[in-house]
């Protein structure tokens, strides 16, 4: 699959049009997760689907999908570690997972910066994790490691 040129011109062009929309929509869903429905998990799923679409349309060796395939596992780990680090930062405010950053006006993006950051970490973790799972299964012949698809951190979304 990774060697193919991807799918027909229609799919490729439409993917190119929609990819930006999908990615920015996923990011918006994650970043506004503390105000509106959504959150890091939902946003991460959308972003991962965007990259999966890129892989399906353009093949595994080109485009943003190829970049992501190489880095998904590392990004996954970075996202999880970032979440843990942010959670531990909560100790500075008194308790584990406590909001440590100064809060802004209610109902704006800055109302809870620490939750936004946590959502971003979850976005990274879930997006990269889902994508890593997809690529481990779809590109099975090449990557022969049983991906664990560890799945606990989205829990806090």
């Amino acid at each position: 699959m990774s060697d193919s040129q991807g799918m027909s011109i229609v799919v490729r062009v439409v993917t190119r049009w929609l990819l930006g929309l999908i990615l920015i929509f996923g990011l918006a869903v994650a970043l506004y997760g503390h105000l509106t429905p959504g959150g890091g998990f939902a946003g991460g799923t959308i972003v991962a689907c965007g990259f999966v679409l890129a892989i399906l349309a353009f093949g595994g060796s080109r485009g943003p999908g190829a970049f992501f395939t190489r880095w998904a596992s590392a990004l996954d780990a970075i996202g999880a570690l970032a979440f843990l680090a942010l959670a531990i930062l909560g100790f500075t405010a008194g308790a584990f997972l406590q909001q440590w950053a100064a809060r802004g006006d209610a109902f704006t993006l800055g109302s809870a910066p620490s939750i936004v950051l946590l959502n971003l970490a979850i976005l990274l973790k879930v997006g990269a994790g889902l994508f890593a799972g997809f690529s481990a299964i779809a590109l099975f012949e090449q990557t022969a490691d049983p991906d664990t698809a560890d799945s606990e951190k989205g829990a806090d979304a």
Partner: protein
Amino acid sequence: MSKILSAFVFCMLVWIAVTWAFDTTSLVLGAVLAGAIAFSLRNLELDEVPLLLMPQRLVWALAYIPVLLLYVIRANFDVAWRVLHPRLPIRPGIVRAKTTLKSPSARVLLANSITLTPGTLSVDVLDDVFYIHRIHVPEAAPEADMQRSMDTFEGFLRRIFE
């Protein structure tokens, strides 16, 4: 450059539509993210889409919508007539037609316009050759007939994209 810029504007519009927040934090963050996405997608093969940068193309694009709608409605009546006709005068088949459009975006839109029109369905696009499934293929010169119907669309799309 214009490719990045148009992608950026598009992403920014989506961001504003989704978040509907106009405070500085949100707008700056949206601009940064839209810029990053537009930049990272720059290498995906595609022709230049200078849609947002040239007003006359925008006007043609807006004009295309009612024209397409007109064709869709007309084809609707045609299909309805065939379906309701007691003898069911259909003659389904696949015809081949060539396009003179060069831009991939224009070709995709052409294919989609054909699909959107009832009774015709683009099955595949291989370079400049379209394979179109029609509900009624005329007995005489089927390809020329198809070519004729495509010409209107092509004229608009050429002005929009090329």
